């Protein structure tokens, strides 16, 4: 009687075996457009044109929203390029970085008023190269919403199409199906490496991609009206902190650095993560020092050398606990650490000798 139900039991295939009454099923394949998974130009012209025209309309729609949400990097790159951008390498220490690493739940929007949607301007090409090998970290450009302009956007239509899977790279082509407008990622150390945000848009919400961890970038296109959640609910959840009720921001100072930073300890779950993040955060200062000590030029400074600087002989990570004592980071379990840590300090190795004998050897093992 019902061919769909009867035949479906048999297997997992969605192509149910044909039945006389519902011939459409047997023609399932032919009835379908040959859209490949990437939704590229194989799509019917109807779909594509629908999409591209609606994209123009949406562009206008979204421009209003775009100004409040868009995040563009100073040297914005088109999708697919190697993540070469780093955020703190500007060398302009007295200028607030455009992409501070402080995770902020919703307030990032305000920072992005000065978005740079500048296509392929490469203002920082020199310094960028230094960090070309930085990977899997908070600062990888791939983890940032790269706002590509229409020029650099790959020719894709949305409509019936799908978007490439993702890796850590979240790319927002600006004139995607609906005039994509990027939403802000929650910038936090461990989250960034994986999932793009599920935004008010066609969010290729690759929560499953986190399991796949494929390497293609995720395309974030924002469509007004998607996902279909009441704005009241959306706003409400946005202001409600998710993972823990309290963020634990502590100051991080480094000897010789002109200013301090703050990190949210709750965004890390191991010492390793914290250490990596701090390395990245303070690497620029280190480079400066390195240079002045006659180390090889910036271009040749690699990640491992950085590590050496921080780990090996130069620096030691310490914290001030609730009692006001300066302790070496790494002795107690992580959870205990974050409950007692009031602030962090990256001390020069030489200063840290008094803190604990063989401190440097300890740290090079632990951190």
């Amino acid at each position, binding site marked *: 009687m019902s061919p769909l139900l009867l035949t479906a039991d048999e297997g997992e295939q969605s192509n149910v075996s044909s039945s006389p009454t519902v011939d459409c099923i047997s023609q399932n394949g032919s009835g379908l457009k040959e859209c490949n998974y990437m939704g590229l130009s194989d799509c019917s012209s109807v779909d594509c044109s629908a999409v591209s025209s609606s994209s123009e*309309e949406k562009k206008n729609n979204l421009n209003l929203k775009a100004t409040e949400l868009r995040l563009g990097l100073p040297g914005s790159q088109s999708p697919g390029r190697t993540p070469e951008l780093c955020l703190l390498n500007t060398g302009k220490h007295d200028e607030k970085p455009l992409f501070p690493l402080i995770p902020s739940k919703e307030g990032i929007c305000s920072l992005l008023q000065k978005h740079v949607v500048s296509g392929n301007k490469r203002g920082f090409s020199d310094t960028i190269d230094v960090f070309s090998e930085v990977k899997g970290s908070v600062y990888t450009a791939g983890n940032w919403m790269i706002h590509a302009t229409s020029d650099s956007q790959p020719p894709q239509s949305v409509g019936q199409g799908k978007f490439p899977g993702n890796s850590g790279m979240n790319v927002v082509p600006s004139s995607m199906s609906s005039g994509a407008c990027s939403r802000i990622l929650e910038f936090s150390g461990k989250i960034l490496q994986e999932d793009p945000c599920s935004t008010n848009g066609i969010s290729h919400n690759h*929560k499953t991609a986190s399991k796949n961890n494929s390497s293609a970038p995720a395309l974030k296109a924002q469509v007004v009206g998607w996902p279909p959640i009441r704005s009241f609910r959306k706003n409400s*959840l946005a202001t409600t902190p998710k993972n823990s*009720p309290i963020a634990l921001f502590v100051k991080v100072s480094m000897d010789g650095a002109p200013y301090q930073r703050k990190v949210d300890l709750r965004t890390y779950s191991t010492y390793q993560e914290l250490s990596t993040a701090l390395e990245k955060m303070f690497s620029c200062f280190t480079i400066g020092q390195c240079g002045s000590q006659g180390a090889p030029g910036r271009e040749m400074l690699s990640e491992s050398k950085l590590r050496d600087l921080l780990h090996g002989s130069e620096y030691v990570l310490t914290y001030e606990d609730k009692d006001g004592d300066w302790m070496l980071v790494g002795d107690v379990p992580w959870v205990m650490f974050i409950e007692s840590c009031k602030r962090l300090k990256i001390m020069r190795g030489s200063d840290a000798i008094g803190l604990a004998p063989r401190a440097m050897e300890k740290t090079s093992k632990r951190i």
Partner: protein
Amino acid sequence: MNYFPDEVLEHVFDFLTSHRDRNAVSLVCSLWYRVERFSRQRVFIGNCYAISPEKLIKRFPGLKSLTLKGKHHFADFNLVPYDWGGYVQPWIEALAKSRIGLEELRLKRMVVSDESLELLSRSFANFKALVLVSCEGFTTDGLAAIAANCRFLRELDLQENEIDDHSGHWLSCFPDSCTSLTSLNFACLKGEINSASLERLVARSPNLRSLRLNRSVPLETLQKILVQAPLLVDLGTGSYVHDPDSETYNKLKTTILTCKSIRNLSGFLEVDPRCLPAIFPICLNLTYLNLSYAAGIHGSELIKLIRRCAKLQRLWILDCIGDKGLEVVASTCNELQELRVFPSDPLGIGHDAVTEYGLVAISIGCPKLHSLLYFCQQMTNAALITVARNCPNFIRFRLCILDPTKPDAVTMQPLDDGFGAIVQSCKFLRRLSLTGLLTDQVFRYIGMYAEQLEMLSVAFAGNSDKGMLYVLNGCKKLRKLEIMDCPFGNGALLSDAGKYETMRSLWMSSCEITLSGCKTLAKMMPRLNVEIINEHDQMEICPEDDGQRVGKLYLYRTLVGPRKDAPEFVWNL
């Protein structure tokens, strides 16, 4: 029938409570029409622009309870501009001028001003119930007027409204003589309220059965309130955060043990999961649990809680429960009738998700399920087919894959067959929302099988006009059709213009229809309002260029012609 006195007819009609039945009865003959209209007390108006307040008042002089809906459903998702319309002011003015003794007003997606609320509060001496859902335009000053002036107020229910919060004093405006409250819901308010006023109000409201607090109400206040209101049936907590070792928390634990009547539990906008054990004793009584705003409760704590709620009939939850959590729901909540799973992180990045596994598990464990809203990462045809087989009783089936054009996660095929199975199996399906990679085929199934379908929501689906045609031709009971981003054009739009008079409304945005198609339709059907919504930036749209695509079309049947309060950017063709 002529020899029945009117009173007898009226008495018989009293047993008809559904407005549809009463509408039907009024069409039988003019006698019945007359008797019915004089005896009607409750009126439901699904589109406030379909009729005018004056006509309403004329027809139903005995009106006591009015329900009005304003903006289209997609206004929830920011698709309708702010000042599109849907003002309640003209209604209240007209009712106030008349001799209608209004007692209840329920509004959804309407623009309500403080002035309207003030007028409302002063015009109807016997006003008893105000329910506002997804409304906007008013502040707590308006609420203060309601509190102060409605002497017999029983119900003040504010659900998910955007309210400008000026201060918490409105609560203090309930006079000491007000002791009639049965239901108070201010969970959507963002500001502080005066705890002492709240406690006193509860203390003098012996009939209070439903109380939903906002997030500013601390746990101490909750405890004190529960002492005063042990007969509460419906509770929405405020800030559910406290030190679990404190005396206050221990007092709460004891107090809750006395609240044996609580059947509905919601809130937890702020929550410390360590305090959840206090509510464990009442979990077994719960029939409705809404944790969809409780982002602070995670997987394992959530599961611990749900394991105790064996009698749940309605569950609203966030997707951080995960597939595993849904399996627990399936094994625990065998009485479940309605499930809503919301995405926990619509604006950010989340690792949690639910997939087709969770849904299949639910369908196995909860055979009584009839209403579903499911936001998920992915879906498969096989899963949908299984669900269709396990749960043939669906009345509402709304599936939202967050990536709207995602195919079957396993086979990469469109999800046509899966949804086809749903409509074929669920013969009483009234509401359906589709997502995923979908071709015209799914609409063919819908047209063929979804005989009771009244509301269909579609996005990013279909290949051609045929899709829409299948639906228009096949679904005889269709009342609301809303479409976004589908390749349906003028051919589909104009194929059966008369159909739209049998429906409440049609919405099409980002489709293939053009201005000329809409103009043609408007000319053919004078009793439809055909509105084009132009966004503010699209000033390049020229009214003469008929070939241009229409961004947003909203058309609805009406007895009163084009509305007079349409803003500039809305063209009524």
